[in-house]
């Protein structure tokens, strides 16, 4: 076949394939157009997952009647004018191909009225060809109706999933914009049912509550300055938003939503930064919930990487990564993460033991001036559950909980089931999991030791102990030899699948070296695919797990006291290195309530 220039219809269809992948991409482009037009209200209505109809209505500036035919032409846009504008894009769209692409693969109806014009225009385009144009009445703004998507590209249509799946994709897209633009009222209707409607109040948390549910919103921790107005793209990365309490975790990263300059982006590295900020807060293989905004000077980021603009390229990716991780971590460690129950009792000043005990005894008897939370006369839900958004006035705003003293002084009362330590604190009862607590203590000690000396002290064995492992574990020994050595193991090859253990980490001295090594290797094998921690951190976590006192071990009073003292000294005492909680807290109020005194 000779080479020839493709007719415009064919070229359009090819280009459309890049922009318009599925109904959700249509919705995305249309919402972006609405937002770029300055809309305060965006209404998205779909039928049958958007395959049959997508209707996006806004109250933006509208298109002047004279420019309407241009709107559906390729590379026609009002958003940029010169190549220099590409260097600092401040609008969501700029390529000038969205509407044209959509129009080329569907039956598109555009109804618009510019703010300063008296009458609106209705334009019908089928498969990229303008069918007719007429003047109509329409409120200021634009409505775009897209029907029979991909009617002229059967191949593409075949690849569409069920309406349900497509609706799910659209739901995600609308959610993202609702979270990115809390000052815009988003209404999302699917098959005649209102799925959600954001208040457009400008408060991110309101949008979070609508999109993710009130329950989830109640467990979100603010990161950075979450109040509007948000900063106008600063030269240094600014990070704000909400992250879930560590108790709130999910099986995958889908609940991590990141926006760059209010554009939803997919960036593995940044979501990894958030996951890493949760280091040791979450159980292995679980992911946090997060809605994080990053503000950055547009000149420091290239969004023109891919037509869907979901991928971006940072000029200094490490700075952005560090900023995100730091901000999220700071928010997490500030918050008192004892999760159950969430009622907070604040004392006007640190009371002495006598006062503390008195308060505990008197809790619920009406003499609670020391408590900042008012006590209701009649029994009712805990104060926290009455407030749908407790985190808008979160406990961390109270300066009485300085970092580093997260755990109050505890008095050990005893042990339950040889597994949990019962302790009394100034604000109620604490149940401490002895194994998890000891793991945390050892973990921080070992990490400190490693940071100081570059490695972990090891204890040599009197005679090397041979260990025969299966080929999987043998592979792990070979692969991670250096990390194992830095963590205090001395293991050398002694034939096929047989190794000699010469030394183990000093913290494990006295234990059966064979079992120690097997357990650590098996731990490494099981967690192989879970990234997030460095290998050595994982090794140290495994070593601590092995070295910590086990549940079922009877501890003496002195041992329990020592353990609790050491836990108090920990930086993050509330979770073990695997992210499980080390303690449960039942406040004085909760106790009083449970006994019907409140």
């Amino acid at each position, binding site marked *: 076949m000779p080479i020839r220039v493709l007719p415009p219809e064919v070229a359009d269809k090819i280009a459309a394939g890049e922009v318009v992948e599925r109904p959700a991409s249509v919705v995305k482009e249309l919402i972006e157009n609405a937002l770029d037009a300055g809309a305060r209200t965006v209404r998205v209505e779909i039928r049958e997952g958007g395959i049959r109809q997508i209707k996006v209505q806004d109250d933006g500036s509208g298109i002047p009647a004279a420019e309407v035919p241009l709107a559906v032409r390729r590379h026609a846009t009002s958003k940029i004018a010169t190549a220099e504008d590409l260097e600092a894009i401040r609008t969501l769209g700029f390529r000038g191909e969205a509407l044209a692409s959509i129009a080329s693969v569907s039956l598109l109806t555009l109804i618009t009225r510019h703010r300063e014009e008296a009458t609106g225009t209705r334009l019908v385009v089928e498969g990229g060809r303008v069918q007719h144009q007429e003047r109509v009445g329409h409120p200021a703004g634009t409505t775009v109706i897209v029907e029979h998507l991909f009617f002229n590209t059967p191949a593409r249509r075949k690849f569409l999933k069920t309406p349900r799946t497509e609706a799910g994709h659209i739901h995600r897209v609308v959610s993202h914009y609702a979270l990115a633009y809390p000052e815009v009222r988003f209404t999302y209707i699917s098959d005649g049912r209102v799925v959600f409607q954001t208040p457009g109040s400008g408060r991110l948390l309101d949008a979070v509550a609508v999109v993710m549910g009130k329950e989830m919103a109640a467990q979100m921790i603010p990161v950075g300055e979450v109040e509007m107005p948000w900063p106008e793209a600063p030269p240094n990365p600014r990070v704000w938003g909400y992250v879930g309490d560590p108790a709130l975790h999910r099986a995958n990263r889908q609940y991590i939503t990141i926006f760059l300059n209010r554009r939803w982006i997919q960036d593995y590295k940044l979501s990894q930064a958030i996951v890493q900020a949760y280091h040791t807060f979450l159980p292995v293989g679980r992911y946090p919930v997060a809605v994080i905004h990053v503000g950055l000077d547009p000149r420091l980021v290239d969004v023109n990487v891919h037509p869907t603009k979901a991928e971006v390229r940072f000029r200094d990716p490490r700075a952005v990564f560090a900023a995100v991780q730091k901000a999220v971590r700071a928010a997490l460690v500030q918050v008192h993460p004892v999760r159950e129950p969430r009622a907070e009792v604040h004392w006007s000043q640190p009371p002495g033991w006598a006062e503390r005990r008195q308060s505990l005894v008197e809790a619920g008897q009406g003499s609670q001036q020391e408590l900042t939370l008012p006590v209701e006369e009649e029994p009712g839900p805990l104060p926290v559950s009455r407030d749908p958004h407790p985190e808008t006035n979160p406990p961390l705003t109270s300066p009485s909980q300085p970092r580093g003293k997260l755990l109050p002084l505890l008095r050990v009362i005893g042990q339950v089931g040889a597994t949990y330590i019962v302790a009394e604190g100034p604000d109620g009862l604490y149940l401490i999991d002895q194994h998890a607590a000891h793991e945390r203590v050892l973990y921080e000690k070992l990490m400190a030791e490693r940071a100081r000396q570059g490695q972990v002290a*090891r*204890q*040599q064995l*009197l*005679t090397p102990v041979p260990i025969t492992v299966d080929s999987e574990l043998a592979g792990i020994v070979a692969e991670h030899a250096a990390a194992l050595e830095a963590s205090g193991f001395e293991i050398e090859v002694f034939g096929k699948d047989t190794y000699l253990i010469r030394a183990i980490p000093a*913290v494990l001295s006295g234990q059966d070296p064979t079992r120690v090594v097997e357990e650590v290797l098996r731990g490494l094998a099981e967690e192989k695919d879970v990234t997030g921690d460095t290998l050595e951190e994982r090794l140290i976590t495994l070593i601590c797990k092995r070295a910590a006192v086990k549940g079922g071990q009877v501890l003496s009073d002195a041992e329990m006291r020592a353990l609790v003292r050491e836990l108090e000294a920990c930086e993050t005492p509330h979770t073990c290195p695997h992210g499980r909680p080390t303690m449960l807290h039942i406040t004085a109020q909760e106790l009083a309530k449970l006994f019907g005194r409140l």
Partner: protein
Amino acid sequence: MRVLCLQENLAKGLSVVNRAISSRTTLPILQNVLLRAEAPASLKLSATNLDIAINCWVAAQVEEEGATTVPARLVTDFVNTLPAGERLRMELNVRTQTLHVECDRTEANFRVIDASDFPVIPTGDGESTLTLPPATLRHMIQQVAFAASTDESRPTLTGVYVTTDEQRLVFVATDGYRLAYRATPVDNVPSDLAVIVPARSLNELARIAADADEEGDATVTVTEDRNQVVFRIPGKGTHDSRGAFQRAEIVSQLIDATYPNYKAIIPGKWDTRVVLNTQEFKQSIQRAYLFARESSNIVKLSVVPGDPGALHVHASSSDYGDHHAVLDAIVEGPELEIAFNGRYLLDVLQVLDSPQMVLEMTKPSRPGVIRPVGAGEDEFLYVLMPMNLR
């Protein structure tokens, strides 16, 4: 059964056998102590947790022989509150299955479980018997048993290897990181003695042996089927003694395993040898350990040859500070820097009673040996592996 005995003697006997009462058992009979009136003048008390059993004989006036069992905790607490010096009169009422106890103007009746329900406990009448002074036995246990492992996953190492070597009785224990060896010459050594006794049993034995009659002989007997060992301790109890027992026995299960070849572990040579004042070294390690325990127990030793030579003891913790001490020492061989687990050093220094001790080493990565100086015929040594930090 009808028997009379002094409150102090009975209280003593009960405190001895109580060590074998397990607080957690599902068998009610194991919570009981077996009382057996034996002619001519003994009351035998027995208790067992099936791992170990303890028999203890106290002086008594036996009017009628017989046996029964009573709850150990109850009868112990009861006897302990009775006035010292009083005589107790005990009589079993078979019909009501109660033990009637009278003392002064107090009377009590204890519900009993029949003696036939009590497990049979073997006594020390086996073949291979050897004798030694009770104090030596106690001393050997103290110097060795601490080095045994507490990790139940390696049962062999939780025991003390009791064996003979020429004309000596040898105790060895190791947990794979350090090893303690103690030998003492004995008469009439059975040539084939080689058993592993749980360290826990020996610790109980040492405790009981503290009250032994030092004039008498302790005996060690392995039962004929070779799965139990019986230690017999002579007591000071006579018919008019107060707070003493006549004799006591500990019967322990043996650990059925092959003990590792410990001889291969004991180093045959040294390059650097340090003679130290035991007390000075112990105190220095105690202080160093205060810091070391916060940082993996690392205690660093540096040997400086010279006249006089010196041993530097160093420990540090990033959170708490550091410790540095210099001890006078007689040093042979080149200088050396080595790190040991402070806990392992302290353990052995607690049981070394000679005024001087020797520390022998070759390399920072090879085991060190600690021996007392001038222990006579008794031989003690302690092998410990260093820690290393590269």
